[in-house]
């Protein structure tokens, strides 16, 4: 069964460093998302992406964050200068149909620890 895969599963970085989290969505999906979950808190929407551009982003997704789909298969989230509060589990998701149906397929997550 096709699934969304994420790498790395866990990354530890120093504050101020750049981090790239990678995701391979399901191959025939057209809509891509990043969510995050700070330990003990809600899963929060970061950004949605369709047709090679951002469709919607939350207030969390500031200038330190960027996304791209460089080669038609990977979908990456970059954090330019990490802060302590960026420590969280980051989930990539994809969907075949429009986001209105909400049927997203999630990866296992990448745990980011900023020291």
């Amino acid at each position, binding site marked *: 069964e096709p*699934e*969304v895969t994420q790498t790395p599963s866990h990354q530890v970085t120093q504050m101020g460093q750049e981090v790239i989290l990678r995701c391979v969505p399901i191959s025939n999906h057209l*809509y891509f*998302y990043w*969510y995050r979950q700070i330990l003990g*808190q*809600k*899963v*929060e*929407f970061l950004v*949605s992406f369709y047709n090679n551009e951002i*469709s*919607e982003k*939350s207030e969390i997704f500031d200038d330190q964050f960027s996304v791209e789909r460089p080669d038609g298969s990977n979908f990456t989230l970059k954090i330019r200068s990490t802060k302590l509060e960026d420590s969280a589990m980051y*989930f990539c998701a994809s969907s075949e149909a429009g*986001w*209105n*149906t*909400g*049927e*997203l*397929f*999630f*990866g*296992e997550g990448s745990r980011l620890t900023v020291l």
Partner: protein
Amino acid sequence: AQTVTQSQPEMSVQEAETVTLSCTYDTSESNYYLFWYKQPPSRQMILVIRQEAYKQQNATENRFSVNFQKAAKSFSLKISDSQLGDTAMYFCASINTGTASKLTFGTGTRLQVTL
């Protein structure tokens, strides 16, 4: 703005018994979807069941069913004949149709199925 509230951080049920997980939500929109997602330990979050707000009939997927009370803005999940594999974190989520691409999640309920 949408909010989703899960008031039960943890629950436990014996195998073969029935358990109900609670969820309330708040939205000013008339058209929306509601979801229950399941996240087993160290696994991907997967969709369990979906309910369209305009449908009065409660959604059912095998042993999983919902009690959708639109006026009360309540959306509980019932798991019948609980199995050990149902042990997971369960997230209630909502999305407004036609206006946004983001799922709004609750904080989750950790369900433990015991022998």
